[in-house]
């Protein structure tokens, strides 16, 4: 038997060992516990976790090695050639050692399994059932603690259940880089805990619950809500960002009860962020439950046939002058349906999925370099990269798994991370990254300078090393010239270029053709071969497809249309949200396909309810370009998808785009595949000249903020970062501002008052959260990053 981790394993890297009398050849340096696992021998363990450094603390996995006098921990011993290993299956010594440790572990463990969340899926319980003693020999009083204590608003700790395996504390330190959860005290009093002044407000805190091998850590959200055997589990994909986390959604009696990170070594490994884990009650809150039609100025419930009929007539009346706006929540299949419906049923190319800060430059960038491109750069490419340069992208807030992967790469694989950013964030510090200070708005100039021949910028040199990756965030769309400079920088340095949007549906929508000028698979609308491929599949004549690229941007599209279909758009995401709302409120027919009541459904002429992703199957395409398909978890409010509604609408309009069935749509997308022909060239917008004077606003959305899908999650919100302004000590001093004091940030359009924190921030720059409690820069200041703001001491005048 040979167990090799990769095909490239050479003979010299393999060693011969004997486990329970079975000869195996395994890579040198493999841990005994992993060797046994791969042979199908389960050595019991509690502290061992394959993604954490070995600690050998629980002593549960003791095994016997020939020639070694004492039993050894299988989790910490690496195999050597000729090693003869005996597990509990063939060694009475190992068996006795393990049963002794088991007895000790249960000594102080409460017999509260019947009321413990972990009961039924508890490694300690399982081990006790399979090899523990029936009766305890301990007659003393068990150790007790006050219970539970909240180590954050989200996580509760029952210390008497803890077996001190230190998985949670090692996760916090080694994986998340948030050493705010620690072992405290000593000996029998040793316990997990936090400092009196600092709860465990890590974005990744929920993972500790999942890896706890007992029921010591529980979430306020799930505690006492269910038993594992009452749950029906479905593999799903996280809808909260473009990281692409594989999740397991657990449903009890039709309701999503909890979500866990699922193991996907290529993407999220076994982790996810707290937003993905804990923000799911939006599924049930404020849902649109039936079609609505406007009558005498008010929306009233209507039957599907009636609503579809009104919608179809409204759209038909505007034939050729219909715009389609889709937001970031859509699945790839749904985005594809909109792309197809627009071109086939509405004969329009006025479609844009970018319900956020967007530009023509960005559209050209995406069409040239991202849309319909094959997979990559990937997470594995980040692991292997010599250097990774981030621009306009804060992984911890905007794509947390990218942070975890980059952090590990930086700590364990010598990947050097650089960030061209307005501030040296905690996230960058976790990656031991190098900060390239950059005033907001100057990103384009900084990159442009580095891409020139003879540049001596260190990060530019880093990008010239083999395996370097340049990751740009969606935010760069707001900086004129930035994406042009990024494209040039990647081209001139040879670095791979990755685009990381914030929302789960963006890349899929782009690849599906939900952007004017682009047909599915990154095909240029104006390319004859591309038109032919698409029209063949769609069963239309090539010349029936729109001939010219349509309008771009939600406001231009809405303003010029007689009818607009809006799906998954939240105007607060869009700096021009106010103009968009004004346009939609005008004398236009507005059809809203929506999951939740919101400002746009409120002013629509017809509202058609659609399913959230837990209620349907679908696919998100993560930032890498990797398809992440998922199944239906619950029946919920409705199972009707956007695609199905569009198919029905097409029928009602005597058009045909198919049945809107997920499998059929996936098949079509697969048939189209990636475009291999010519593409639009990358944009060449020159950086805007540096603006003179003033204080610049830097901002991005924090992971936990006022996002629509986090609403109704107070425990999660309790772990969010505080709303505060951040600037450098020098900038603050020059304006007479002091740490911790209130400051007022203002523009001609409004002002905000919030506390000031001093940190490493570019000069003459103030950072504010984009959309957090008490601070929404678009709504409150009418500002976008890079704008000039005023900051003065004190509260409002």
């Amino acid at each position, binding site marked *: 038997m040979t167990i090799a981790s990769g095909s490239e394993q050479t003979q010299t890297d393999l060693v011969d060992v004997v486990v329970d009398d079975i000869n195996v050849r395994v890579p040198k340096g493999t841990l005994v516990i992993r060797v046994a696992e791969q042979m199908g021998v389960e050595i019991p363990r509690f502290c061992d976790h394959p993604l954490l450094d070995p600690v050998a603390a629980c002593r549960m996995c003791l095994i016997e090695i020939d020639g070694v006098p004492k039993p050894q921990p299988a989790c910490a011993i690496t195999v050597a050639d000729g090693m003869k290993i005996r597990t509990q299956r063939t060694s009475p010594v190992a068996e006795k050692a393990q049963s002794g440790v088991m007895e000790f572990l249960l000594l102080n463990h409460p017999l509260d399994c019947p009321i413990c969340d972990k009961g039924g899926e508890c490694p300690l319980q399982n081990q006790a059932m399979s090899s523990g003693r029936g009766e305890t020999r301990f007659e003393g009083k068990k150790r007790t603690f006050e219970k539970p204590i909240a180590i954050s608003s989200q996580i509760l700790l029952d210390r008497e259940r803890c077996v001190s395996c230190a998985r949670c504390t090692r996760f916090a330190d080694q994986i998340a880089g*948030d050493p705010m959860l620690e072992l*405290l*005290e000593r000996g029998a009093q040793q316990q997990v805990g*936090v*400092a009196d002044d600092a709860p465990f407000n890590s974005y990744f805190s929920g993972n500790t619950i999942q890896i706890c091998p007992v029921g010591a850590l529980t979430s306020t959200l799930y505690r006492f809500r269910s038993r594992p055997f009452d749950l029906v589990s479905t593999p799903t994909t996280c809808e909260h960002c473009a990281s692409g986390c594989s999740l397991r959604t657990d449903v009890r009696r039709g309701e999503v009860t909890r979500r866990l990170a699922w193991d996907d070594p290529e993407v999220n490994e076994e982790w996810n962020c707290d937003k993905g884990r804990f923000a799911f009650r939006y599924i049930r809150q404020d849902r649109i439950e039936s079609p609505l039609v406007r009558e005498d100025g008010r929306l009233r419930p209507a039957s599907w046939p009636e609503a579809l009929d009104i919608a179809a007539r409204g759209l038909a009346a505007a034939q050729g002058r219909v715009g389609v706006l889709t937001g970031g929540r859509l699945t790839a299949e749904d985005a594809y349906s909109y792309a197809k419906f627009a071109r086939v049923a509405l004969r329009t190319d006025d479609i844009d999925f970018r319900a956020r800060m967007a530009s023509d430059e960005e559209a050209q960038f995406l069409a040239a370099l991202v849309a319909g491109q094959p997979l990559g750069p990937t997470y594995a490419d980040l692991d292997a990269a010599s250097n990774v340069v981030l621009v306009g992208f804060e992984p911890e807030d905007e794509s947390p798994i990218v942070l975890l992967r980059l952090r590990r790469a930086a700590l364990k694989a010598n990947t050097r991370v650089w960030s061209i950013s307005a501030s040296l964030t905690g996230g960058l510090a976790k990656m031991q990254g190098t900060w390239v200070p950059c005033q907001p708005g100057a990103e384009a100039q900084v990159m442009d300078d580095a891409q020139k021949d003879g540049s001596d910028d260190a990060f530019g040199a880093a990008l010239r090393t083999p395996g370097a990756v340049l990751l740009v965030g969606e935010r760069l769309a707001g900086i004129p010239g930035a994406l042009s400079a990024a494209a040039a920088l990647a081209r001139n340095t040879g670095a791979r270029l990755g685009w990381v949007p914030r929302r789960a549906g963006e890349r899929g929508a782009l690849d599906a053709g939900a952007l004017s000028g682009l047909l599915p698979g990154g095909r240029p609308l104006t390319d004859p071969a591309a038109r032919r491929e698409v029209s063949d599949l769609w069963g239309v004549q090539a010349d029936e497809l729109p001939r010219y690229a349509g309008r771009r941007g939600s406001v231009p599209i809405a303003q010029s249309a007689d009818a607009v279909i809006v799906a998954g758009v939240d105007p607060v995401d869009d700096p021009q949200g106010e103009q968009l709302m004004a346009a939609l409120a005008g004398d236009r027919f507005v059809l809203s396909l929506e999951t939740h009541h919101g400002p746009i459904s409120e002013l629509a002429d017809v509202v058609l309810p659609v399913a959230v992703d837990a209620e349907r199957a679908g696919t998100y395409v993560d930032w890498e370009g990797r398809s992440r398909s998922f199944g239906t978890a619950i029946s919920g409010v409705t199972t009707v998808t956007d695609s199905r509604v569009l198919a029905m609408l097409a029928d009602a309009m005597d058009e045909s785009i198919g049945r809107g069935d997920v499998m059929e749509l996936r098949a079509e997308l697969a048939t189209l595949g990636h475009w291999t022909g010519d593409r639009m060239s990358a944009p060449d917008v020159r950086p805007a000249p540096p603006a003179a004077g003033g204080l610049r606003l830097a901002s991005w959305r924090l992971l936990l903020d006022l996002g629509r899908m986090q609403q109704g999650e107070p425990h999660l919100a309790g772990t969010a970062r505080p709303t505060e302004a951040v600037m450098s000590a020098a900038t603050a001093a020059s304006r007479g501002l002091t740490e911790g004091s209130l400051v007022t940030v203002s523009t001609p359009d409004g002002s905000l008052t919030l506390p000031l924190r001093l940190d490493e921030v570019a000069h003459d720059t103030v950072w504010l959260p984009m959309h957090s409690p008490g601070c929404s820069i678009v709504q409150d200041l009418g500002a976008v990053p890079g704008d000039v703001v005023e900051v003065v001491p004190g509260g409002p005048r």
Partner: protein
Amino acid sequence: MTNFDHLAEQMDQIVARYPKSRSAVMPLLHLLQSDQGAVTMEGISVIADRLELTTAEVTAVASFYTMYKRRDVGRHHIGVCTNTLCAVLGGDAVYDAIAQRLSAGHNESTADGQFHLERIECQAACTHAPVMTVDWEFMDNQTPSSAVEVIDALARGDRVESTRGPVIRDFAATEHTMAFPDDGLAGEGTPVDAIMLAGLTVAGELNMTAPKPSSSAQSKEDHS
């Protein structure tokens, strides 16, 4: 918020002592305990800031070691060894006598904040059993009455000398010594006592000495 500016320079000196700053956490905890009478949340916070650690990391260290106290110790820390050897040689009785005198138990302070009593573990002074400590200075070979006398003298503010060390100062001063060990008191008192010299004395009486090196050993060494 307490101001810790007066400690800034000393904190810098401690941090500068070590190749890596985190190593300074223990002496800094001693320093802050000397200043505050206990390891307080504010003290932990100051150390965390200075060493760029989380307060949890500092709390984890502070709560591991017995000498860091969560509650104000007061003026004098009184330790009585009740580990096996001291206990059976009389340490239990010494402890009981002091506990009774102070009306305080293990890890408790007197109401007036003068004394804090603790059953301590082996003091590396078994030859001097039963052992008591005052502010961690040795008070060797105690009896219940001698121990109570020590307490009474301290309570009166009398000058009390350690049996092997300097005149008793107070808990804060000793904690400062932990942070800055070269405290100028090494020459005080008679730290080398008859018990430490027991073997040397007997050897002298019996004319016993260790053999001196022969010339051959010397020359061999010269060659190496």
